[in-house]
């Protein structure tokens, strides 16, 4: 391989959303509909205060799904809101979500996109 270069992207955030098992696909779809890309979903197990029931202490759906989506600063609030509504997180026992700042992100960026970005930066426009 010739010269390898890493392009850092900044102004990105990661949204983490934990929902009951089998609900993640709907949340991811909602996020994609408002422009998010690259959702990753994992299975996780959780317990919560309000989820205990019965004599045996069987937890309802301790199986959870955890969604992670990286978004740019501009789309962050829109995606967050869409995911919140799709996951019905305003109802009890449905899950929780939060958002963190990322210092930097690196991934493959096609050369033409990179060139265009550099050009617009020289001209004083926005970055990616």
């Amino acid at each position, binding site marked *: 391989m010739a010269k390898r270069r890493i392009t850092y992207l900044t102004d990105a955030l990661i949204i983490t959303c934990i929902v009951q098992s089998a609900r993640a696909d709907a949340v991811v779809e909602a996020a994609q509909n408002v422009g998010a890309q690259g959702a990753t*979903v994992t*299975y996780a197990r959780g317990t919560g205060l309000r989820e205990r029931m019965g004599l045996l202490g069987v937890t309802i*759906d301790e199986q959870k799904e955890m969604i992670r989506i990286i978004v740019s600063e501009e789309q962050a609030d829109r995606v967050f809101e869409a995911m919140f509504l799709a996951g019905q997180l305003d109802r009890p*026992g449905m899950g929780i979500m939060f958002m963190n700042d990322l210092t930097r992100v690196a991934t493959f960026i096609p050369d033409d996109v990179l060139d265009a970005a550099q050009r617009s930066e020289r001209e004083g426009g926005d970055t990616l």
Partner: protein
Amino acid sequence: MLIAPYSGVRFFAQLRAVLPLAAYLIAFQLLILRQPLDAALTLSAGLFAVVFGLALFMEGLNVGLMPFGTLIGDRLPRRASMPVMLSIIAVLGVGVTFAEPAIGALQAFGVSVDVTRAPYLYELLNNWTLPLVLLVGLGVGLAAMLGTVRFVYGWSLKPVIFLTVLPTICVTLIVYANPDLRAIIGLAWDCGAVTTGPVTVPLVLSIGIGIANSAGKPGSSLSGFGVVTLASLLPILAVLGLALFVAEIRSPDEIIAAAKAMPAASTAAQARGFWSTSPVQEVVLGVRAILPLVVFLLFVLFVLLRDRLANRVFTTYGLVLAVIGMCIFNIGLTFGLGAIGGQTGAALPAAFMQIDTNAASPLYDMRLGLVLVISFAWVLGLGATLAEPALNALGLTVQNLTNGAFRKSMLMYSVALGVASGIALGIAKILFGLNLIYLLVPLYTLALVLTFFSTEEFVCVAWDSAGVTTGPVTVPLVLAMGLGLGKAVSAVEGFGILSMASIGPIIAVLGMGLFFRFRQGSDSEAEVEASLEGAH
């Protein structure tokens, strides 16, 4: 209280699976066959019991039986030597076969076989029942051992499949060469299909996954699969071998003579005791399918492995749910699904020929009637498979192991499609008197070719799904139909539908995997592989 959403979700999941099937059966009987429904109230209560029992059983599987199996599988390779582990697994395989209620259903067929037309089939089912079940059990035991050895050493499943399927087909051809033995082929291939039921599959799968996790080579996330596959192939070889052996020591004439000498003996033994009256029998069957296995596994865990249950309350709760669920489910089958299936199955031949119970028969002309019957079988296969608990468990396992990438619904629908087509073919075989071998050989050859081109993940799942399709929902419905039709057209034997129902899903799942690769273009996959190579 959150108990309502907790139980509601589970109940409605099963309701969605069972209700369309029941509605379909009832609608078909009322509208197409124009037969009134017997005992509608008992039927609905039975259907409710099926749904309720399934929901309990599945929850019990998830909370109790499967984690329990995984725990055993995880501990076995660490605490026990290889020979000890293999013998435990072999014992489990034999035990599982005896617990499987569908084996009994095959034996029930034996009475209806005409001795003069299929002497060896009659002989095997009536006088060699114990060796037959024992050999099938040994086949399953051997398969479980082989499967374990396979994933401990990280062998690929593909060569194992080639090395088992090819000899099986060869022996089938040898048996076919002897006209007196020909009728055995259907029985042998069906035996393979029935060995793996709603308790066996989840348990074997979870034990396999446990062993693969703690002793296996790292690799595919689905490497714990493949045991069920072998468990449905080796019994075929065992039964065919037994048939060849019997053919060596007894001639057809002897059998026919012996059968004619003692005609009334079997009917005398039919006296029904308390244990075989209706609700009691179902409870006994349900308990028998789960309890001995669990007791054996507990013995292994406590005595041989000297271990404890990590989460005793949960596991006990799950096991109790599974047993109760299985019993309720069995009762529901008898009074609900099985009853509708029996009614419809008996009325079905009226579509194309004259039968006694329906004065208006034949309802349609021959050609339309046959098309109706075969398409009825297709939809029935589709619905029954979707309601099958073992398939549910397999789908769930696959989905969990791939972190949801391989969707449960996707697997279930493709398997159901395969089973439906298989059953339709099997029914066609009976109606037109086709020889099973003309269907088996080309279909298995196709499956082998597809296997060769597929990825390991899809191979494992596809061949395993063949075993799970023939469980407590499908078998009684299909057998009732097959028996009714077989009698109506006076076929030599009604076997072969189940073996068709096993090969169907293999082809369907493998085909689905190849379709995904084809649709996305080979370049996107090659791109991934090239970039993976280049990075290191």
